[in-house]
């Protein structure tokens, strides 16, 4: 962790001694090898490198407290990352969609793990349950043989390499930023705990400032509380009311647009039925 923090400084030595950096490098090489292309044993070597990278990455992060938490966290994140890599490295579009769904389930699991129950469940309902199923429909109907014609399209080595290393750079920057934020949060929490202790100590003398400090230091528990959903609803419909309404209106507009595209240029069924029947009667009459 300290290596990570120091990596902010433009110092080659610290960057080289940071395990996350090497993890990213090895991981991106592994990802590049695992992409669908004609390299012998590319998938196997890429997979091995990816696992090494995951191990290196995991060793650089702070440990969670009871070992069960740690095990669950590592399991879910490994599933998520491996499924995400498999999404872009498998050849058949159907398998891509399935792996994508699995990686979304893993993400939902991580949300659950952190106590954001609603976010986790909403991820499953919206993404895994609705969007990916729609993808799956389209893919299955469009390319039942497993390989679509666009699979033969070659983007060349440059695009693939550039995208893999750009992704690695983004992950690296995010890791550094979030790592710093996490460190700051830990420091802040430590200060807060100290303040609470002081407050409780001074509370025995029942002085006014002590009580105020105790009130201020008490952390507001949003996630994992009894009324998690009610609190979330309150926040959404008071502080973020306009964003919610705008998003709702946007979705309504999209819905109306989709329907208008679907019925574009088509007359109503009843009209067509009436017309067909009239024509039918006319033909019968003419024949008579």
């Amino acid at each position, binding site marked *: 962790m300290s290596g990570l923090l120091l990596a902010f400084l433009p110092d080659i030595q610290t960057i080289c001694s940071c395990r996350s950096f090497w993890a990213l490098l090895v991981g991106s090489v592994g990802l590049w090898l695992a992409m669908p292309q004609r390299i012998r044993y590319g998938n196997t070597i890429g997979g091995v490198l990816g696992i090494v990278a995951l191990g290196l990455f995991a060793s650089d992060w702070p440990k969670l407290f009871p070992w069960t938490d740690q095990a669950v966290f590592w399991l879910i994140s490994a599933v998520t990352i491996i499924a995400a890599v498999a999404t872009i490295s498998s050849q058949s579009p*159907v398998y891509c969609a*399935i792996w994508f769904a699995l990686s979304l389930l893993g993400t939902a699991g991580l949300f659950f793990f952190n106590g954001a129950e609603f976010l986790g*469940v909403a991820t*499953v309902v919206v993404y895994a*349950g*609705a969007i990916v199923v729609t993808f799956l429909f389209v893919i299955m109907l469009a390319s039942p043989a*497993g390989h679509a014609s666009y699979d033969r399209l070659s983007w060349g080595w440059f695009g693939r390499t550039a995208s893999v290393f750009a992704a690695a750079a983004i992950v690296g920057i995010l890791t550094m930023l979030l790592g710093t934020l996490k460190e700051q949060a830990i420091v802040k929490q430590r200060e807060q705990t100290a303040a609470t202790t002081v407050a409780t100590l001074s509370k025995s003398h029942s002085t006014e400032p002590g009580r105020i400090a105790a009130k201020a230091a008490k952390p507001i528990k949003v996630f994992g509380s009894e009324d*998690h959903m009610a609190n979330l609803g309150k926040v959404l419909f008071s502080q973020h009311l306009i964003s919610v309404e705008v998003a709702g209106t946007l979705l309504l507009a999209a819905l109306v647009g989709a329907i208008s595209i679907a019925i574009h240029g088509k007359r109503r*069924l009843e009209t067509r039925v009436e017309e067909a*029947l009239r024509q039918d009667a006319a033909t019968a009459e003419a024949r008579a």
Partner: protein
Amino acid sequence: MPAHGVCRRQTQKMIPALIKIGILIGGLMTAAAYFVLLERRMAAWIQDRIGPNRVGVPLSLFGFKDLALWGFGQPAADGLKFIFKEEYTPAHVDKRLYVIAPIVILAAALAIFAVIPFGSMLPPLDDFGIPTGGDPVQLVVAPGVDVGMIFVFALSSIAVYGVILGGWASNNKYSFLGGLRSSAQLIAYELPMGLGILGVVLAAGSLNLEKIMQAQVNGPWFAIAQPLGFLVFVIAAFAEAARLPFDLPEAEQELIGGYHTEYAGMKLLLFLVAEFLHMITASFLIVILFLGGWHFPWITGPADAEIGWLTAIIRLIVFNTKIFLVIVFFMMVRWSWPRFRYDQLMSLAWKIMLPLGLVNFVAVAVMQEARHALGSKAENLGWTLMVIVFSWGICIAAWVVAAWFNPLITDNRPRRMLATAEVDSQI
């Protein structure tokens, strides 16, 4: 010390949870097996036959006379037959997805029961050597999940994967058609189902299934207070469970066996058990959301008092009796209704169920707002009666309007030229 304390607290949570999971999975699997027998016996009863009544305890193996026991050995015989059948995998299937599909559907169907209560609660079990910390034992695997209802929804949408993958991996046109029909049906009926639930959630003020049951202990059952929502939910639940008026995914006359045409042996068993579990889940939800859960007037006690063993057992019996009756209702409907045609199914979902669900939702919202406006004046019997009368009025009015502008009516006049017009309209 802290490490030790955390570990012990976790063990304290783990052991009851594991016991509950064991009871649930064992109970559900056995229940599914015996409900198959019940379904066959009921089918026989409705069609004036006798049904399977021979397989009992095979005592003739030990030289005694066989015990018939009204066919209670039939589920075991069926299960053994499925297990010992040849695990035949056709050559033309996509092997991996073909294996995964039944696992996905069964896992999703079982995981739903993590948040569904199967009773009220038991008194503390510390006397029996199970560390519960002196708290009453909630009869649900994961107690206090605040998003329980959406969790159920999320996992039932995962079940679509099992169906659609099973249909596609079989590489068979009938299977694929069954899978597509089923997923379209499940997605279409999720909307009215959600609207039916929304009314209940609004009235109870929580998504937690235990709290929804408690709200019905204190007020009227939601089946009485929101008859329209109840109707919409029950019909949508039939569609979600793919029970007979809505069993198009496996309409035998059109699609052989639907998405599980190519399956045999254990994998087919997984599909069939998952389908039965969907029906059992639907019955649990109907009872929990609309029929008061474990509550029955006068005999089950108040919701938030200390619970004794007698009350606990009465509540368990009431709850399970209700679920049993709802399942029997499911089975009776199966032999009383013809199957819908596909376009009728879709029209019913989008043109009748969806508007009715919206009407119910708005009515419930209006009533809740009125209750808030009245404040403490609304906490009496007169108000409750008024709510019930109002919602029944809304229900009857909406039903009459839906029947008046009936979009399900089909033109059955002789047609020749009509064929093209109708084919176009289906697309």
